[in-house]
């Protein structure tokens, strides 16, 4: 009987994984941009920057990429965006329909997988199951991140005793959602003061998130819900358009900053 799959040894499989992973890791000890968090805003920023020819590494603490973008309100896997964010869906090739004037609906799995695919196609590299631990600061500027395996970070330090590693970059983007882990780390060091996010609910807060997507400390850009935490903006509803457009804005800001550094 003919074999369907080629015959390879177990050790070849292991070597293939180890070799390629570690050569990638070695190459990405230094990037143009490191993005922490692979939700809709982080992925969009990553895709845009890679498309512009930048070397981009995304850190994600979970195994899966996409954050909350797989699913909409009440665990229903439809995602909604408001105009003009449907243009981003259009670019990604995600089918959508107009539900009411200016409000568009798409399938969460379709939108999320297309966005991840587009980021990969653009050349973005990912370290998933990798948690942000600390920032690298050099000459008064954020110059990278310190990371560790998520399972290691989840265990008490006295059991694991595994030190984290540092990865350098010209710019770091905090796309960690409401937690704003990177910005909070700077706050711990007394370098930044975040305002905590508001619970007053205002429809326009999506606009505010886009308008405030910016560099908040030299070398650190915030995007997505992290913006809301850093600036103390009101809460917003579950439409994802603001996240996608904030990601785009973060990429624009990063490109400007990279240009200044050249």
């Amino acid at each position, binding site marked *: 009987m003919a074999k369907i799959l080629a015959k390879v040894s177990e050790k070849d499989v292991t070597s293939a994984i180890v070799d390629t992973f570690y050569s990638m890791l070695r190459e990405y000890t230094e990037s143009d941009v490191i993005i922490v968090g692979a939700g809709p805003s982080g992925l969009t920023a990553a895709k845009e920057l890679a498309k512009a020819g930048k070397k981009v590494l995304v850190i994600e603490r979970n195994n899966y990429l996409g954050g909350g973008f797989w699913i909409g309100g009440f665990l229903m896997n439809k995602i909604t965006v408001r105009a003009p964010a449907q243009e981003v869906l259009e670019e990604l090739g995600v089918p959508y329909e107009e539900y009411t004037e200016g409000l568009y609906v798409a399938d969460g799995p379709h939108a999320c997988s297309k966005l991840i695919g587009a980021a990969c196609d653009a050349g973005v590299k990912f370290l998933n199951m990798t948690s942000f631990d600390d920032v690298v600061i050099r000459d008064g500027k954020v110059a990278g991140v310190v990371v560790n395996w998520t399972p290691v970070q989840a265990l008490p330090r006295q059991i694991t005793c595994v030190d984290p590693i540092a990865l350098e970059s010209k710019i770091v983007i905090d796309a960690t959602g409401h937690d704003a882990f990177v910005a909070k780390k700077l706050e711990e060091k007394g370098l930044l003061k975040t*305002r905590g996010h508001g619970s007053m609910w205002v429809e326009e807060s999506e606009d505010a998130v886009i308008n405030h997507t910016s560099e908040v400390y030299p070398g650190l850009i915030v995007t997505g819900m992290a913006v809301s935490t850093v600036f*103390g903006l009101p809460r917003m509803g579950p439409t994802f358009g603001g996240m996608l457009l904030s990601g785009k804005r973060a990429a624009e800001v990063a490109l400007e900053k990279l240009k200044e550094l050249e």
Partner: protein
Amino acid sequence: MKIYVEDSFWDSFLFFEGIRKFFRFSVEFNPYKFKDPYFLAYIRVRNPNKREFYEPFPVEVENEKRGLIKGVIYDGVELLRYFSRDVDISEPTVLITNRLIATFGEDGRYHLRMIVIGPAAIISLKGILYAPAKPLQYYMMHSFGFDEKIDVKVDKVLKMLLLQFYAYFKHEEIFCESEECMLHNCHTTEEIKKVKGLCERHRKMFGDSVNLRGLS
């Protein structure tokens, strides 16, 4: 009465004629511009449970200069204090703004406001849409991402608020118990719908000052 309208939406302000016809005395309209973007960025509400002001980030001052203020909430008391110092308030003076304003309550929380009253007043057009509580269905639909239309007659509420300030300024009258009276302190869109005109007592006080036709 002097009514200032923030210059950013002076051109799109729809209520000049309605307000002029509502009051039987003369109303003077003027555009108004806040001159200090840093101050505006400084008095933003950051945390609903704390009245605390922060040194603004550069982007916040920049956004103020460019008028990118959607979704930003301001401390109404500070905003009014600034406005009251900036203009002559010897006669009743109101600023109508498109900014969202909130005041810190005795319950230790900020609440969105339609109006903040002091020696002068600030009325928030957006506050008229967002501040009054809505029927439950509105929030249900909204939490699913649907744009439910807000069921509020803005011109009616605007007239109510202007009259409330006028009553306070002239007679130190604060709010009326009668649910149908324009001076009733409405907290919900349903309460606003119940307002029909002036109660008997307030008709005696203000019947000569206002023209109630076409209100409801």
